[in-house]
């Protein structure tokens, strides 16, 4: 089934019924392409056949003929599907500088949230997506090495454990897919991206802010400026292909950070964080025209 995901044409294939249904649900607003001469990325998640259907059964994710995940348990198809798509893009789309960050946009300016697993990045991303910001990505910031604008994917947001409950409480307009329990990251589910974010996926965003995140239980919300040099170091260590791009990666990243305001953020309460980012400090940064995707 060829689907348009931001700048990419992708072909999805699976022999797992539950996954096919989940993909139809989570990607409902994306355009299916009827005829296509060229597919950017072919991704498949298949359950092993033969004897292994019953004895120590496993699944694999393959993208472009290359294994993304070679063997994982059969109860984790949907999370591994999404993680497999992330790996595919991170591995094969290296004409972008790809940062490990959630990206949301308002008035043409991108807010990039950088943080390791468990830092609350996806929770904050989801919270802001359903409170006035447009979703570009919950995991991969695709930065152009030419003009430094960010390209959107608007894919489902992956949420784990407690953050799933928190986001579901935002309201019935938040639609989540099936929940997978007992994965390597605990309980995982995916939030369907808002229709508006998907409809506007071709609109790129100009970098505006970097927020380097740490989640601390019961912490007071604290936003502090961080030097651009320190921001470069942290973001470089949180990038998928900064090292791969070599000197060009260094030049692109330093130029992008130079145009942004950079902060460290500690938070524990999502409502407080939403209020902060919807306040004056994160109103329009620059007057920008929205750029078409390249």
């Amino acid at each position: 089934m060829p689907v348009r995901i931001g700048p990419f044409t992708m072909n999805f294939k699976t022999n797992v019924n539950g996954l096919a249904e989940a993909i139809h649900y989570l990607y409902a607003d994306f355009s299916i392409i009827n005829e296509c001469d060229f597919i950017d990325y072919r991704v498949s998640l298949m359950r092993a056949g033969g004897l292994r259907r019953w004895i120590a059964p496993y699944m694999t994710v393959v993208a472009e003929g290359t294994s993304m995940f070679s063997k994982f348990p059969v109860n984790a198809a949907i999370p591994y599907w999404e993680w497999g798509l992330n790996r595919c893009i991170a591995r094969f789309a290296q004409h972008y500088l790809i940062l490990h960050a959630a990206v949301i946009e308002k008035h043409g300016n991108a807010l990039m949230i950088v943080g390791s697993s468990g830092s609350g990045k996806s929770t904050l991303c989801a919270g802001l997506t359903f409170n006035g910001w447009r979703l570009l990505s919950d995991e991969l910031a695709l930065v152009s090495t030419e003009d430094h604008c960010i390209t959107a994917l608007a894919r489902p947001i992956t949420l784990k454990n407690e953050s799933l409950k928190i986001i579901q409480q935002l309201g019935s307009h938040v639609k989540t897919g099936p929940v997978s329990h007992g994965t390597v990251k605990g309980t995982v589910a995916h939030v369907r991206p808002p229709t508006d974010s998907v409809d506007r996926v071709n609109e790129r965003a100009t970098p505006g802010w970097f927020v380097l995140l740490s989640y601390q239980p019961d912490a007071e919300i604290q936003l502090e400026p961080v030097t651009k040099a320190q921001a470069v170091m942290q973001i470089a260590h949180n990038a998928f292909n900064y090292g791969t791009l070599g000197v060009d990666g260094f030049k692109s990243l330093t130029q992008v950070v130079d145009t942004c305001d950079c902060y460290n953020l500690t938070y524990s309460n999502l409502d407080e964080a939403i209020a902060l980012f919807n306040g004056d400090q994160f109103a329009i940064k620059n007057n920008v025209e929205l750029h078409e995707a390249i």
Partner: protein
Amino acid sequence: MEFSDHILLQVLRDPEKMATLSLSEWDALKPLARSTLVISKIAALAHKLDLLDLLPEQIVPHLTSAHVFAARHDRAVRWEVNRVQRALRDVNTPIILLKGAAYAISNMACATGRVYGDTDILVLKDRLGEVENSLTRHGWDTDEDNEYDERYYRTWLHELPPMRHRERGTVLDVHHNILPRIDKLQINIQLLFESAIPINGTKVCVLSPPDMVLHSAAHLFRIGNFDHGLRDLADLDELIRQFNNLDGFWDSVLDRAQQLKLTLPWYSATRYVEYLFHTPIPDRVKRTVAKWAPLWPEVPIIDRLVKRAVLPRKIDDRDVRRQMAISLLGHWPLPRLKVTMTGLFWIKRMPWFAKQEKT
């Protein structure tokens, strides 16, 4: 259609052909080139021959991505060699780079657009202990997660298990011979050390041209490692073309193959590299090598296995037949029976030892 007319092989043999491919042909070619690790070679050729403007715009970002990926690998292998020299500066052993690392450091044609896995070095057997200690002091650890795998390597294969650098995450394979211990054919490795060629400005050497091509042949057809068969045969094609004009090259290879008893791997290597890449091999050489053909298994069987192994027929799913061909090519030349009779061989294959993949 003859197998060697496959579009991927045509493009590798004649890169200018890229400019004539339609969008659907590129669509079919791209995942094959990716899965056989030759896409960055194609990208490098497109850059070198200035063909990018002639190609459909949809393929250009993919070639750019592959090009960037290979450039990183090139930088990484050069740095790795730099760090290995630093770590081993006080150990009294020559260090011979093997395979990819050797191609990169000596700027061989086949290094262009190549992606690298582990770095392979050859050191003196007597110094293995000191080498391991020095590497450990400089940040490398044995890679294997469990003691079964570690014992397997130490007992049967290269002596040292693969060593992973704690910070860089790169893997170093330290060999003391080019064939594993379980192979009853033992190479007189001293001969290779004596002929090794130092690289200017470094403390490392590479194998002499005849030894380099024979090692490539042995890797494919004696050790039987066909995981990256197409790329390795493409490397060999370029090596042969580069050495073709060296005085005495062919006579040296033939003599050396007999001296090291690698005549059968050399027969196979020349047969398939010529079939797939039309490598120019002088007739007199072909006549000599033809006498080294195996009696069993029959050549047509190996022909079929090699064709199966070098190119996947399925992109979206496991190509089971290809895996089987790769596995058979791995087991045919090398007497693994001794190894399969040990408990170690089976224990490490039990599912509960499988590593959980990181996401």
